[in-house]
């Protein structure tokens, strides 16, 4: 495979130096931006270098991070999953409903719902041939409706083991952060070290070729959406546990957009064929830190949103635009 895959691109455009440069920026821009923003905050934000502040930032990034990891896999297959926010809401709505049967049952049902929703999306995409954006759009609309029907209004969660899952910590590290770290390692391993990961990247690169080469395209696609749904449900469970409440109208709202942005800023192209897990983590942290920085300095919501819009465009321009604009 290596010999065939590394055929150098034809040297039509003789600007090797600039191409290396922009490629470096695309790969590492997110780390540079993250480091810069941390440095800026160390200087201008009071009490930024404080265990409590950092802890809070890590806790707050958990839902977006977990969702973004699943999204990275889906985007790697040249797909997209808009239903993640609705799946989060669904999982969060299930917790208070089933907590009477015990915490583990409630969590299991919530995760199963996420896996089921992901399987539905995967089946529609892989077997029926519906475009990912349409399939997951339908599930998003319907899923949010189902979550609202289940939850109705804000419900508080008092079950001790779920509360401790959300608020407890070991050696000063919150459980939710640990879980997110474990998920990140597992997903990284899946992408880099497993057959599934290689098949996923091959399919994202060229689905037709992968199918002709005999790869189980449909199974891999379905699995990918299943994993994405499962992770979204996990994010919903953790969010519900941390806030000790579930509000199906609010949980996970617009998170699909933050997650997609984190993935793209992290260097995973929307055109598939590549998955950058470490970049995605950095992307999620960067998005969280941007929001936090604006909050630290009491920037009103209106300005914050406009600033975020400009940052997203600038970041994606650095990631993608430079190559396209030059061609």
């Amino acid at each position, binding site marked *: 495979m290596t010999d065939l895959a590394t055929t150098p691109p034809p040297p039509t455009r003789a600007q090797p130096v600039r191409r290396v440069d922009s490629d470096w920026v695309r790969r590492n821009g997110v780390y540079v931006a993250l480091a810069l923003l941390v440095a800026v905050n160390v200087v201008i934000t009071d009490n930024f270098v404080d265990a409590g502040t950092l802890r809070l930032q890590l806790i707050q990034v958990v839902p977006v991070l977990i969702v973004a990891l699943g999204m990275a896999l889906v985007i790697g297959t040249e797909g997209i999953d808009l239903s993640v926010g609705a799946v989060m809401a669904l999982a969060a709505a299930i917790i208070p409903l089933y907590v009477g049967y015990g915490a583990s049952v409630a969590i299991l049902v919530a995760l199963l719902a996420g896996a089921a929703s992901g399987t539905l999306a995967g089946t529609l995409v892989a077997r029926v041939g*519906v475009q990912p954006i349409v399939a997951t*759009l*339908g599930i998003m*609309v319907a899923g949010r409706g189902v979550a609202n029907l289940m939850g109705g209004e804000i419900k508080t969660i008092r079950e001790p083991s779920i509360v401790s899952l959300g608020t407890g910590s070991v050696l000063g590290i919150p459980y939710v952060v640990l879980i997110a770290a474990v998920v990140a390692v597992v997903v990284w391993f899946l992408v880099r070290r497993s057959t599934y990961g290689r098949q996923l990247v091959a399919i994202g690169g060229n689905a037709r070729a992968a*199918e002709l080469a005999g790869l189980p395209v449909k199974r891999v696609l379905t699995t990918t959406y299943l994993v994405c749904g499962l992770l979204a449900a996990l994010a919903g469970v953790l969010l519900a546990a941390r806030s000790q409440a579930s509000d199906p109208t609010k949980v996970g709202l617009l998170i699909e*957009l933050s997650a997609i942005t984190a993935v793209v800023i992290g260097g995973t192209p929307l055109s598939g064929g590549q998955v950058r897990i470490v970049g995605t983590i950095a992307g999620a942290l960067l998005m969280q830190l941007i929001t936090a920085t604006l909050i630290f300095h009491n920037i009103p*919501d*209106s300005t914050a949103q406009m600033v975020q819009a400009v940052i997203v465009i600038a970041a994606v321009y650095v990631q993608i635009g430079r190559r396209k604009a030059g061609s």
Partner: protein
Amino acid sequence: MTAGTIAEPAPGTAGTPRSTRARIARLVQRQGALVILVLAALSATAAFDSFGTQRNVTSIAVQVSFLAVVALGMTFVILTGGIDLSVGSVFALGGVLAAWGSQHGALVALLLPLAVCGAIGLVQGLIIARGGLPPFIVTLAGLLFARGLLLALTDEGSTTYKVPAGSAFRELAQGKLLGVNHSVWVVVVLFAVGGLVLHRTSYGSTVLAIGGQEDAADLMGLPVARTKIVAYVMSGLLAGLGGILIASYTSSGVTILGAGMELEAIAAVVLGGTLLTGGAGTVLGTLVGVLLLQVIKNVINQVGSLDSNWQAVVSGSILLLVVTLQRYLARVERR
């Protein structure tokens, strides 16, 4: 799908289908939403006495006009192979600007939102067409930007501007011609114009060509970038107009409107048979899609005992059902 169908070319997409069965499949595939719409409307008329009344039909027409005008712009964007996620925010922004502007006269209420929303569309179009950034991300940023601008204008969303009593601006959506609100007529005219532009002008052909195959359109010397930019400007203008209409109808600039509207608009366009990859679709199909979504909502309201969240469940399920049907029929047609 067996291995044989992969290598097979897709003659059904162009030219005439071979068998009668294929021809029927093709018709149903194109008009699937229309069939469901007619069936839904007929059964609703039979089931609920209140559905077919002139009052209810007028109400559906008014309610549908806001989404319809947004979905019309979305149709053009999607036909170029793009997507516009900003329309919900731009819609809300247009409404707030119209309500604010109406204090300075009906003309300001009309022109100010169109100028601002058109400008947002222009900037998005420029970044997408000239900068080469993905429409998905650019218009997502546009969503945030427009919402931020709206919040800045309304003291972080706490102020709701009212249209002054007796303002001529109220007449736009509240006044009636032949028993039907002016806003509905506006939408009817816009769809007629939109249909003519898409199917009878060179701009429309260029839109379809770009969505079909952008590289080929570019090599043919078609003005790809300009056509795309115009599509995003139109989408911004029409989303703003939707906001203007609802501001006139409700006599106020409600700040919380428009959330999730982009998805409803996309759903309507897809239901109407337009391919999300661009290149094929009709303006009339979009109108059918919008009407179908609205009839579903109306029927669920008629039932009364049903939670309004069923609207979302049913709309989402219908969307999945129709696209599954479209895929299935496309395969039948190919045989």
